């Protein structure tokens, strides 16, 4: 049975996590995502799970470290400055190959910034953020339903690949309400958790560690991780295309920016312009082959981000010189209107003689 309910983004994430079997949540308050810990504080006791407010983001992510070592599905959430504090432990989780779900509801920055929606943490999310040669799947939902569905998927991806997985939203995604279908998590076959620490009953002790003093051993571990990341690159990329079939100009945008772009594209279409949208759903691994296919058909890309331009690097890496890429961005927590993007589209259409 599925019910349709009106839900806020943050609540959708929390409820999806619970229904995905998340039984430990550790976090520290920061706007605009406080509704996640608040929801968890109410909901976890109902399902016999653990909710604990840590004394900092550092403590919270390290509690996650302990809980996932014990084999429990665990989540933490925060917003930009708090995510910066979690980076050291993310590096530990990545190399100790432990699954965890981390939510970043991005806000304006750098520094303390503001609490408005923003996409300035793309580099931090997709380029590691923490130290060392690791990668981490990064998922950027574009609606409240997707926040719900992809949070569930994030737990499966984390368990399948034994890796931390980051959900990258922004203040708009977190605070917006939309009707969504609440459903149970689809059944997925997952590997047995043969690494967990539950007391060495009838077996030798297990060690989860990252110190490998021997350089050759450390290199081996890095190549092992690399092979896993290659597998992720094959299996995980996801994207959504909207009216790209005949589009001459394609807007490339993710998350909230893609929603704004959709409004603009609809208006431009109504005005007779052949435009479409390519929306990466996974930011790492980036859906580069799908984007390359679109690049082969279109004439111009307009990369639109709520930042001064970060994802555009991945777009260019994916398409090389095959297509010209223009950029439009509004950083700092400014939310552009669809009309604003429509104007840019119109101007480019005329300027580039599309």
């Amino acid at each position: 049975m599925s019910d349709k309910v009106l839900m806020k983004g943050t609540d959708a994430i929390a409820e999806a996590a619970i229904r995905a079997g998340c039984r430990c949540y550790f976090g520290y308050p920061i706007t605009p995502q406080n509704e996640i810990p608040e929801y968890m504080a109410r909901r976890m006791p109902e399902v016999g799970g653990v909710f604990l407010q840590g004394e900092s983001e550092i403590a919270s992510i390290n509690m996650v470290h302990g809980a996932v070592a014990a084999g429990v599905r665990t989540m933490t959430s925060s917003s930009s400055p708090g995510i910066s504090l979690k980076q050291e432990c993310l590096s530990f989780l990545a190399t100790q190959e432990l699954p965890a779900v981390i939510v970043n509801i991005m806000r304006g920055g750098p520094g303390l910034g503001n609490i408005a929606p923003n996409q300035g943490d793309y580099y931090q999310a997709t380029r590691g953020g923490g130290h060392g040669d690791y990668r981490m799947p990064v998922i950027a939902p574009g609606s409240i339903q997707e926040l719900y569905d992809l949070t569930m998927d994030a737990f499966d991806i984390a368990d399948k690949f034994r890796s931390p997985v980051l959900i990258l939203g922004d203040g708009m995604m977190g605070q917006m309400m939309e009707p969504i279908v609440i459903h149970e998590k689809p059944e997925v076959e997952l590997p047995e958790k043969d690494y967990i620490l539950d007391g060495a009953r009838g077996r030798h002790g297990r060690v989860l560690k990252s110190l490998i003093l021997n350089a050759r051993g450390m290199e081996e571990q890095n190549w092992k991780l690399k092979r896993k990341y290659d597998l992720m690159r094959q299996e995980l990329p996801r994207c959504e295309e909207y009216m790209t079939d005949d589009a001459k100009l394609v807007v490339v945008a993710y998350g909230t920016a893609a929603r704004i772009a959709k409004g603009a594209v609809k208006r431009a279409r109504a005005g007779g312009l052949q435009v479409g949208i390519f929306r990466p759903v996974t930011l790492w691994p980036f859906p580069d082959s799908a984007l390359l296919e679109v690049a082969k058909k279109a004439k111009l890309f307009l990369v639109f981000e709520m930042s001064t331009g970060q994802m555009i690097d991945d777009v260019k890496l994916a398409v090389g010189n095959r297509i010209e890429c223009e950029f439009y961005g509004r950083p700092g927590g400014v939310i552009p209107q669809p009309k604003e993007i429509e104007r840019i589209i119109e101007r480019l259409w005329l300027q580039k003689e599309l």
Partner: protein
Amino acid sequence: MEKIFSRPACMKPAPFHYCPGCGHSIIHRLIGELIDEMNLRENIVCVPPCGCAVLAYDYFDIDMVEAAHGRGCAVATGLKRANPSLMVFTYQGDGDISAIGTAETLHAANRGELITSIFVNNAVYGMTGGQMAPTTILGQKTTTSPAGRSARVEGYPLKITELIAQLDGAAYVARNSLATPAKVNATKKSIKKALEIQQQGIGFSLVEILSPCPTNWKVNALEAFKYLEDVMEKEFNPGVLKDITKSRKA
């Protein structure tokens, strides 16, 4: 011939990498003996530190998860909350527990987490080569306080154990020393008590152990034990700082 002394069964047949005269070896053995005697091997998880004892997992045949520097008490919190049937202990140096990890330690203690911390105070950063620690004694020379620690510049030796004893969540807090064989035996008793407090679900327990680091104190092993008694014990007074099971009975 009858065997009267052997390696604890929970310990691996691996020679310690610790310097000769280092307290970590003694403390490891005490913990190993207690895991055997209390029959804990198949139900205990250790969170080793970043510090000389990071390689503890090479010596114990028990489950272990290595934490980032200082975060042991947070990792142990997560483990214990996720699986309350486990016995969980952290093993931490003075830098780990009372510099970079101060917040995680105090808050875990204050929440009364049902974990045990073994805090090895050797007054220096051993692993990184003998830099000043929060517990470095006034006047003590280290590689980053070459003229000797001065209260004016570096502040006073930090007594995190006294701080923890003030917290309502802490059930058992003790400080011991390895200076003599009798004191080593007393240390073992304190660790046992701390583990029992955890078993009984009473609250947070911590044992600070004053421990020699001859290498970075730049003395030989015998002089190190003398320094422990003459200097360290004067600054950090051994004793039971808190035991709520006592006050309850009283």
